[in-house]
């Protein structure tokens, strides 16, 4: 067995064992789907835009992955505070591999949660417009998971305490989420909002998933995929760079 695998396995065990965390992480997006999908669905329909639930599903999947990806990336902060990080850092394993094991664990968990939400939305009546695009959808989700767990790991390497984590949630994660077009179409949004959204990488993830799932796109899939790929690279570089500097 390899060090990367055992650290991945540790994350998976933690995940499976914390049922409240599993339920919480899946419950929230379902609540959004039900409350917004059914609550705003009629308004949306009256505005002539079609089925809101359908429109919402890709956004809610990105939301799920955003919150769980960053949360599991930020586990490094918990490990820092509760001590286990030291055990990993003094082991004869390079930091890159320690980071890799932890981040792959987080990414796997986030991907699973994203898939759960997709399955549940199907139970609620959602159907992708073309099943042939499913592999691409999953690939986009995976890329997003890797980017966000890395982003979380990088952030965790910088902040020292849980207050810092709260700040990250309120000033980085929520704005990213609300400016990603996950909940409303960008077409017709005020200019300021559109500009802010267009510099948010998450917007392109939402847009890409809308393309592969419901055949709607604002930027075009090529542009989306390029931005996603760049985001993944930038996030990984950020995580490696910051994690290497941790002095426990």
């Amino acid at each position, binding site marked *: *067995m*390899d*060090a990367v*695998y*055992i*650290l991945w396995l*540790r994350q998976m*065990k*933690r995940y499976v*064992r*914390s049922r409240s965390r599993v339920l919480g992480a899946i419950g929230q997006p379902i609540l959004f789907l039900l409350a917004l999908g059914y609550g705003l669905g009629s308004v949306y329909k009256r505005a002539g835009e079609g089925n809101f639930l359908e429109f919402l599903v890709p956004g809610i999947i990105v939301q799920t992955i955003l919150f769980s990806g960053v949360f599991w990336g930020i586990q490094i902060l918990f490990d820092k505070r*509760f*001590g*286990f*990080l*030291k*055990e*990993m*850092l*003094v*082991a*004869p*394993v*390079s930091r890159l591999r320690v980071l890799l094991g932890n981040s792959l664990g987080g990414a796997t968990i986030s991907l699973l949660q994203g898939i759960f939400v997709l399955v549940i939305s199907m139970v609620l009546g959602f159907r992708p417009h073309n099943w042939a695009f499913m592999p691409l959808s999953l690939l986009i989700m995976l890329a997003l998971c890797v980017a966000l767990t890395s982003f979380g790991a990088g952030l965790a390497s910088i902040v*020292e305490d849980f207050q810092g984590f709260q700040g990250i949630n309120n000033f980085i994660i929520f704005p990213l989420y609300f400016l990603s077009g996950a909940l409303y179409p960008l077409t017709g949004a005020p200019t300021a909002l559109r500009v802010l959204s267009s510099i948010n990488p998450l917007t392109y993830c939402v847009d890409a998933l809308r393309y592969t799932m419901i055949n709607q796109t604002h930027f075009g899939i090529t542009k989306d995929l390029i931005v996603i790929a760049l985001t993944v690279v930038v996030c990984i570089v950020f995580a490696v760079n910051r994690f290497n500097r941790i*002095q*426990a």
Partner: protein
Amino acid sequence: MSEAVIKATKVVKNFGDVKAVRGISFEIQAGEIFAFLGPNGAGKSTTISMLTTMLRPTSGELYLNGHDVQKEQDAARRSFGIVFQDPALEEELTAYENMIVHAVLYAVPKAEQKPRIEELLRLVDLWGRKDSYVKTFSGGMRRRLEIARGLLHHPKILFLDEPTLGLDTQTRNLLWDYVKKLNSSEGTTIFFTTHYLDEAQAIAERIAIIDHGEIVAVGTVGQLTKKTGTKDLEEAYLQLTGKEVRDETSLANNGLNVRTANRNMRLR
């Protein structure tokens, strides 16, 4: 040339403007039991963090078992086991799973993992609880588990950073008995820090007293009392380090307090 298993030469560590360790040098022979004493914030934990590759020294050289701690990190890391000041266990795994994670991280051969883990867990009286989650363990049980874990990869050196802090007398005695046994049967070099001078006096063969980031005296209890003209280690210690109580810009939390203090100073 004597066979120094731990060697520090002119080691300096600064956190911003705070000079935590100011050029300390010492040598510890293979098989020795060595204690590091000093008031809060003297630089004990910072020194251990540097020896165990967690902190990079600002300058100076450190060798563990002949390996340069900065240049041959992995070889240096394989030569020691450590029991940290604060528990470093994964609470949501069982005792056994914590041991397995450690075995894999240290590349203990697969066939040896199970017998070694069983032997060590029996030794620290935790075999019966091997499948319990660590979060259900008391402080003493956690400490025992950490010791078992620190020995899993058969290290040449065992670092113990205030290992008896918060433990009851029974557990403390058990711990030291075990450490002494390990030292005599396996020849493991023991390096520990403590605030309990009676422990240092009873267990350590040699003692270094560190204060304000400098080693103020090294030697056996006899040498230290003779040097200071005192009766016992406590008197010698107080004479060397003074009687005033140290404030809290200590290096507890491995320099975190100092870093935070620095930041606060800058903010002011």
